[in-house]
């Protein structure tokens, strides 16, 4: 099969032409400017995932919120369910970029990880 998949890894948004079959997977890709397109296209065809980014309220921090992401990206169809899990969670400062704030959300194996440093005040 032939498809065009817009790579969403970076803002360049390459419209990647991909040849693939259900049995053999991706046979070839073209029209992409970098190596990040290959793994993305493969994932988008067989296991679509998105990096879920949101924020969580922080107690006694120099910011009222800490920004977070799912690590690794979570299955695309579970984003809203994951948001329900995250809503209501509060954390305490200090927080460092990379701190794991929630583990194995919805049994996906994905953690929720801080993306901002928040100092204690």
């Amino acid at each position, binding site marked *: 099969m032939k498809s065009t998949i817009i790579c969403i890894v970076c*803002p360049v948004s390459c419209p990647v032409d991909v040849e693939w079959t259900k049995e053999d997977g991706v046979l070839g890709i073209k029209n992409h400017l970098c190596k990040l397109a290959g793994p993305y296209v493969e994932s988008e065809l067989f296991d679509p995932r998105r990096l879920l*980014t949101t924020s969580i309220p922080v107690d006694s921090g120099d910011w009222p919120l800490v920004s977070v992401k799912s690590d690794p990206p979570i299955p695309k169809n579970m984003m809203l369910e994951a948001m329900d899990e995250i809503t209501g969670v509060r954390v305490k400062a200090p927080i460092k970029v990379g701190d794991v704030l929630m583990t194995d959300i919805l049994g996906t194996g994905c953690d929720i990880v801080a993306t901002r440093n928040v100092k204690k005040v």
Partner: protein
Amino acid sequence: MGDREFADVAIIGGGPAGLAAAAEAKGAGAKRVIMIERDERVGGILNQQVHDGFGTKVFKEALTGPEYSAIYEDRVNERGVETWLKTTVTELTKDRLITVRSERGVEKIQAGAVVLAMGCRERTRGAIGTPGTRPAGVYTAGAVQYYMNVSNLAVGRKVVILGSGDIGLIMARRMVLEGAEVVCVAEILPQPSGIAGNIVRCLEDFDIPLYLSTTVVEIHGKERVTGVTLAEVGPKMGEKKGTRRYFDCDTLLLSVGLIPETELANELGLTMSPVTNGAIVDESFHTSAPGIFSCGNVLQVHDVVDYATLEAEKTGIAAARYALTGDLPEAKISISAGAGLRYVLPANISGEDSIDFTMRPWKEEHDKSVVFKSGGEVLRRLKMPHMEPAGMIRVRVGKGRFKHVENNEITVEVED
């Protein structure tokens, strides 16, 4: 009132461009670098852009805005850049005397070189003249992004977004994730203003309709927005009769473009580009005023922060060089945008160094080439599988290509 301070390089603005310029100016040997930021934190727009997609060019991975910002904040701190927070520049003279105001009062900084890195602000409702009453519930998309991602405030439950700029698209997704209903996105142009990737992951992923060649013709509600009327527009942006449609909503987000914060540049009388609304600069990002440089979104609106960073790093190095030696490469070759291109930057080069040119096309094109020409001869031809106005093009031309420039003129154009 402090005494006059001296700095080798002063950077106005502590967003992504200011951070990168400051770090590299210090790295290139400038002894005292002062970065002036009016907010209480550095990082600029990155602080509120909690989504990912930053860093794919510089770090080869997609980071979130705060993660990207933290890397450069650490770098300026490690290198010993002085950061003056909550400080606003009120005046900048051609002699590079900067007047600032902060909680300490009014202070003056005499700088050897100045980098303008003030970024952009959003176009507002006034700037586009939307008709209707003046109820609460009309916001710019970036302001809402700040409320939601920095201040933890929600603005509405049922949202229409006017304009398909990237921040508007990102906010469509963000508001759905936070439990609001996004009714639709309306775009007056026949094509989206945001990048294709954001149409996919922010609209298509959540089944949010995008109406092209459509705009808001009326805002309803007295105290609070109760709805909007949309209508289709013709090729000359006039309303098409019989296309009015009413949508219930309590919030209207505007994502209708960015305006460079060029007040300081205008007061200095810098030569400005009517296309980018930023200063005209040479390969060192040096403006028409000696010792004054410009980079980042105040120079040209970027859609990829990495490119703003790379541009600002070069600017910081050049500013340090100017401050220390008073000398920059003589940029005698002029660069002009030909067929198919809105603009090309820089406007002048020396021909002694390889150059990363940035440009935008007038319209979407497939399988064309960007061609650098001088005196009828092709200096460089670069294949472009895909070009669109929403995507800045950045291409490197090696210095060897500039050996055969005639009359110190190069034209860049789009060809088959």
